[in-house]
């Protein structure tokens, strides 16, 4: 079933999946950066970009993520044409945005929209770490807020896949305030009794970790994902001691009671589908 999603790209009107081929490992064979296992690239993609040797989860583009989760042909994107301004007149910011737009074929670091998972309606936001490290500026905050408002309007569950280095420096305190903006929207969603599931993928740090990523009714993460508030180097400098290797990994957070679970990518759609089913049966 999943196989088909990557091949039949034509059905996706709003998200061009054609680019997937250029982005993920070039050539016929791919070498895992973790265990050096060599795989046929086609097989790697079929395996949802998870190494067959060591189960290393490659980063997924937003387009690939959506294709791996949403029932074929059911995705409608929101606000695809929203783009960042340069509110602080930061040198080179607009050029960097333009170059990331060309590289990723998306206009900002989050893709939002609605679709179905196993036949059940969801509103979805997927962050994309290839675009400015998934950092959150005004557009990311606005798109997520609008998506939450659409979820409220349609009485849909809201699911977010986070991947972000945190706040976007170039938009200064405006980016900090997006943490508050998305939070007031999430509060409204929650007060309506609607479901919010957060799945943290590599990396989820800083302002994104300290806002919507951490306040799902369910908080999950992909294996080995880096998740934390402060940067490892800053912490090491502050406390003057070395941190354990697994510090700020999904498994570390699970051990410290910060996550409901760590979910392998191959189980992601199934788990989300089951949760959505549990909630749809219980819907008031």
């Amino acid at each position, binding site marked *: 079933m999943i196989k088909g999603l990557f091949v039949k790209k034509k059905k996706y009107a709003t998200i061009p999946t054609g680019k997937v081929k250029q982005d993920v490992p070039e050539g016929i064979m791919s070498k895992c950066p973790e265990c050096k296992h060599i795989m046929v690239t086609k097989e790697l993609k079929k395996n949802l970009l998870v190494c067959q040797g060591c189960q290393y989860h490659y980063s997924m583009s937003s387009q690939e993520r959506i294709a791996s989760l949403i029932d074929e042909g059911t995705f409608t994107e929101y606000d695809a044409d929203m783009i960042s301004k340069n509110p*602080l007149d930061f040198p080179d910011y607009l050029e960097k945005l333009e170059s990331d737009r060309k590289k990723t074929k998306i206009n900002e670091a989050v893709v939002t929209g609605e679709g179905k998972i196993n036949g059940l309606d969801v509103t979805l936001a997927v962050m994309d770490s290839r675009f400015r490290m998934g950092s959150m500026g005004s557009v990311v905050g606005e798109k997520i807020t609008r998506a939450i408002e659409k979820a409220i309007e349609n009485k849909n569950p809201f699911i977010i896949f986070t991947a972000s280095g945190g706040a976007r420096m170039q938009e200064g305190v405006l980016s900090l305030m997006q943490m*508050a903006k998305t939070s007031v929207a999430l*509060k409204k969603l929650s007060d309506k009794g609607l479901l919010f599931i957060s799945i943290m993928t590599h990396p989820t740090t800083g302002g994104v970790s300290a806002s919507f990523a951490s306040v799902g009714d369910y908080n999950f993460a992909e294996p080995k994902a880096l998740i934390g508030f402060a940067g490892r180097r800053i912490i090491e400098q502050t406390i003057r001691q070395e941190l354990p290797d697994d510090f700020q990994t999904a498994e570390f957070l699970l051990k410290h009671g910060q996550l409901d679970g760590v979910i392998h990518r191959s189980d992601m759609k199934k788990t989300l589908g089951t949760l959505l089913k549990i909630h749809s049966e219980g819907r008031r």
Partner: protein
Amino acid sequence: MAAELEFERPIHELEKKIAELKSFMEEKDIDLTDEIQRLEEKLSRLENSTYSEMKPWDRVQIARHAERPTTLDYISYLFTDFIELHGDRLFGDDEAIVGGVAFYKNLPVTVIGHQRGKDTKENLRRNFGMPHPEGYRKALRLMKQAEKFNRPIICFIDTKGAYPGKAAEERGQSEAIARNLVEMAGLTVPVICIVIGEGGSGGALALGVGNYVHMLENSTYSVISPEGAAAILWKDASLAKKAAESMRITAPDLKELGIIDEIIEEVKGGAHKDPKRQAEEIDSVLESSLNNLLSMSQDELIEQRYEKYKKIGQFGFVNDSIVVK
């Protein structure tokens, strides 16, 4: 005087000169009145020009001044019968955040704020005003209590940021901050936030989702410290001054960006020059803010907060030259 601020040096030099002349006049019994008067006029002009054209970096220096009034200072001036309440009921008591109940002109309120120390000993106890998760959870506990008993909440913001430590991460620094943002959004009582010193990133925002957010004239509010920004942007923390200018972190900047409501004027040279008078400035803004909010219903308070944050941000569209605000 603990620390002389760089941009104030010419003023201090002139003050010293005047003092010298005065003592000289007394000692030697020579009339230097004219000369002294001339210098005093010059001093007054210099003060006016220095304090009316403050650069972002000057304000950063004032915001960080060791003697700048803290949350507990303002509590003592603005409120009566303050009773401090401790602990998050989960792990411990974080002294980098203080909170409690008090009267504000006969009105019962809850007051919460970051608390830094004024000397090394107190700073160690208060972790330099940089909270751990239990600090934010204590704050939230007190906010929920305020909501239960229908008391307005006043938050003073004054932190370099949430503490970047191993234990803080283990206990869920991210979740603690995020939870406060979400829960503050839904509080059914008036919430007024006042930045009194440094408003450092998520650690500041975790006490900062209010119906009104005001800033003292020389306080700062930023996504990252100027030093941190310089380190990331130009790989050189010594360019902090430049970063302070380009990051737009001062009260006038935030007012212009549509993030804060009012700038609270500071006494000449900064709040530390006269804390009591500074408290009076805060008092008048606090009183009018509270009066506005006390007439609003619970739903209106939540809706006002929603609209306030919803409109923050600047963006456009691909085929659109018009900026949507």
